């Protein structure tokens, strides 16, 4: 797993400095040249160094627009008056600026040039004014000249340079939250992963869409589009419709006439489904029937196939929404059990069970669009023989079914545990079931991913589909970037969101909490309330009290499910 960091407005400068310093030291160049080189190589220091080792230094520099000034080029101009080649004005030598490439023009002209380029959004690569000169202008010169005339524009120039670190950088992406939280996420390592910004949004780092593993980004993109396009179709099919022979959209019969027209303009015969301008003769109506039936049959099969996957995908997504309401119920219950003399006070098994339910529900839900594409004709038609496909599909569906059945069981037990009138014995029984099922389900998810990665996507020959790996403990939350982040092993979590109880829970483990009914923490504030992020203030208070303890996200899942 890679390093996942959140870059806030404040830490942007720090992050950039880090990379600049690295290149400045290695290549022995100034900061401005390091920046120019890094921008040219999209802030990928590794690829920059690889090019450096491969090509000679001069080529690397000239391609990026870096010119190391020869001392004699920068020698002060001898004459006191110089004619600027752009404005044709005679100016004194001290009003002329010469870039590293040796091209000098009057300061007014440079300033105008910079202003045009900054306004044009080209701050990151302002080239010398000389025709075909590739040299990137010195950022300090740009800043000085522009700020003398337009201080606000100089500020914008600096912001552009800073934001280049995000926009031109493969390893960094803006958080796609709307409205934007202002953060970016940096991933050092595999870019195929799912991340959680400190604002709480979880997304696929590779495509910036919602987290969608085990679907690949392409599968997910196609699926979202398909769902949008088909939503009408799926609704219509439930009433009596027939697919149009041209656009395959279902058409409803309007009145008794068997000659119908689709919205696409296609006329067709309701009886045989064939394209027809007019009422066609009964004889021809029958003669096409077989072939037609085969074709409309195919369209119908495609649609039914889609609906099969869509309905299951939708059912699990809907369940997930309903179950997420249980989160609040658990919090309420904990509050109650704290205040009353309730015999069972430790609910970590329930929290963990619920968390496992969320995780596996997501996997299950997204496994349907995955299967739709994996075993359909849209993407991998020629990758597998029909026999091979059938076999693999069976194996996959077996796993899917096992997972599904156990997820429903878990959901059932968790729901039951909210019954206030349960006997202690029954609660203990449920507790056992939830703990066992959680472990089993985690294992099934792992198995499903193994099958996907090794036997399905891993076997593709013509194309590559990468997916974010299964993370037993959930989507990795980005930690704050600090000056010392490079050497800092501990990922501190400063955010409050869906899964934040994880940290709370693990620290409880460390504190040696037991199931015997002793309060897990004395500092619980009983007047806790939910804030708008859906996180109880009590938890946050506790987190602060613990002073961001280190938490190893790679902790095996068993660690959560054991107690």
């Amino acid at each position, binding site marked *: 797993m890679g390093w996942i960091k959140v870059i806030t407005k404040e830490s942007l400068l720090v992050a950039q400095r880090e990379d600049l310093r690295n290149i400045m030291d290695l290549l022995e160049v100034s900061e401005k040249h390091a920046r120019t080189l890094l921008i040219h190589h999209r802030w990928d220091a590794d690829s920059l160094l690889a090019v450096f080792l491969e090509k000679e230094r001069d080529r690397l520099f000239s391609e990026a627009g870096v010119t190391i000034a020869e001392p004699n080029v920068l020698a002060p101009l001898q004459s006191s008056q110089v004619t600027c080649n752009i404005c044709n004005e005679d100016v004194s030598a001290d009003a002329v600026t010469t870039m590293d490439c040796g091209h000098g023009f009057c300061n007014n002209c440079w300033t105008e040039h910079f202003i045009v380029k900054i306004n044009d959004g080209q701050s990151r690569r302002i080239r010398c*004014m000389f025709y075909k000169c590739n040299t990137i202008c010195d950022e300090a010169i740009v800043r000085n000249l522009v700020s003398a005339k337009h201080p606000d524009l100089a500020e914008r120039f600096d912001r552009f340079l800073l934001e280049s670190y995000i926009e031109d950088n493969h390893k960094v992406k803006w958080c796609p939250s709307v409205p934007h939280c202002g953060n970016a996420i940096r991933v050092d390592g595999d870019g195929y992963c799912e991340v959680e910004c400190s604002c709480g949004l979880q997304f696929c780092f590779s495509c910036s869409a919602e987290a969608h593993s085990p679907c690949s980004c392409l599968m997910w993109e196609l699926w979202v589009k398909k769902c949008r396009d088909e939503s009408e179709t799926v609704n219509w099919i439930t009433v009596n419709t027939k697919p149009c022979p041209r656009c395959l959209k279902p058409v409803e019969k309007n009145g008794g006439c068997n000659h119908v027209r689709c919205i696409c303009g296609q006329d067709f015969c309701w009886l045989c489904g064939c394209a027809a301008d007019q009422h066609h003769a009964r004889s021809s109506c029958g003669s096409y029937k077989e072939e037609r039936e085969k074709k409309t049959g195919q369209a119908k099969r495609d649609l039914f196939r889609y609906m099969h996957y869509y309905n299951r995908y939708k059912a699990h997504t809907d369940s997930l929404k309903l179950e997420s309401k249980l989160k609040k119920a658990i919090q309420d219950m904990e509050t109650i059990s704290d205040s009353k003399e309730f015999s069972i006070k430790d609910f970590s098994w329930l929290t963990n069970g619920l968390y496992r339910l969320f995780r596996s529900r997501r996997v299950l839900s997204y496994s349907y669009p995955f299967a739709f594409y994996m075993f359909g004709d849209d993407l991998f038609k020629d990758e597998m023989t029909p026999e091979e496909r059938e076999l693999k599909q069976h194996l996959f569906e077996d796993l899917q079914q096992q997972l599904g059945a156990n997820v429903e069981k878990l959901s059932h037990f968790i729901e039951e545990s909210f019954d206030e009138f349960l006997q202690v014995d029954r609660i203990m029984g449920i507790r056992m079931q939830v703990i066992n099922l959680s472990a089993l389900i985690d294992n099934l998810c792992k198995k499903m991913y193994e099958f996907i990665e090794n036997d399905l996507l891993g076997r593709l020959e013509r194309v590559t589909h990468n997916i974010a790996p299964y993370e037993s403990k959930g989507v990795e939350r980005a930690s704050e970037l600090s000056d010392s982040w490079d050497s800092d092993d501990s990922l501190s979590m400063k955010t409050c969101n869906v899964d934040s109880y994880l940290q709370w829970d693990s620290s409880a483990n460390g504190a040696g909490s037991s199931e015997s009914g002793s309060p897990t923490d004395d500092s619980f504030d009983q007047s806790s309330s939910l804030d708008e992020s859906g996180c109880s203030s009590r938890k946050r208070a506790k987190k602060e009290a613990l002073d961001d303890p280190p938490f190893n996200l790679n902790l095996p899942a068993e660690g959560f499910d054991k107690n």
Partner: protein
Amino acid sequence: MLDLSRVQKELVDCNRDKSSGVSIDLVGDQLSHLAGTISGPIGTPYEGGVFRIDIRLPDGYPFEPPKMQFVTKVWHPNISSQNGAICLDILKDQWSPALTLKTALLSLQALLSAPEPDDPQDAVVAQQYLRDYPTFLGTARYWTEAFARRVSIGTEEKVQKLVEMGFPEALVRTTLENAGGDENMALEKLCSG
């Protein structure tokens, strides 16, 4: 603001050199609107033609590139046969303030000599150029004959006459063009509108 002194100097410099085959004239009384003329290069299907180019100078000129467009219809992969739009790097991101209108026009002349069909403005022309060069040559030559011959000086005379009657030149040109070169019809339109 447009650097007027530089533009004036450019006009003088460009028109002093008669041998270059390019020239620049004022269109109205604004230095920001000019008309360039280039003669078709010898040995190309454009030979013998005279091509007019509409030149608009943005406020940021010379730090922003001039906007140029062929007024004379021309059959060329990098020039739109529909509206005369030009695909040339120095008029876009390769523009340098150190270039001038004259160098830009000379580049256009060079473009007429050496089309770049891989970076086309007009896909139809570019395809013909690549797949059926003889037909391309024929069409380009025919268009030069039809639209760019010096005979169209006749048009210039009509323009001159109408401008002398007190109508702005730009308006005169478009009206004449819309009237299919019919002087009387153009005059009627100019008076009524």
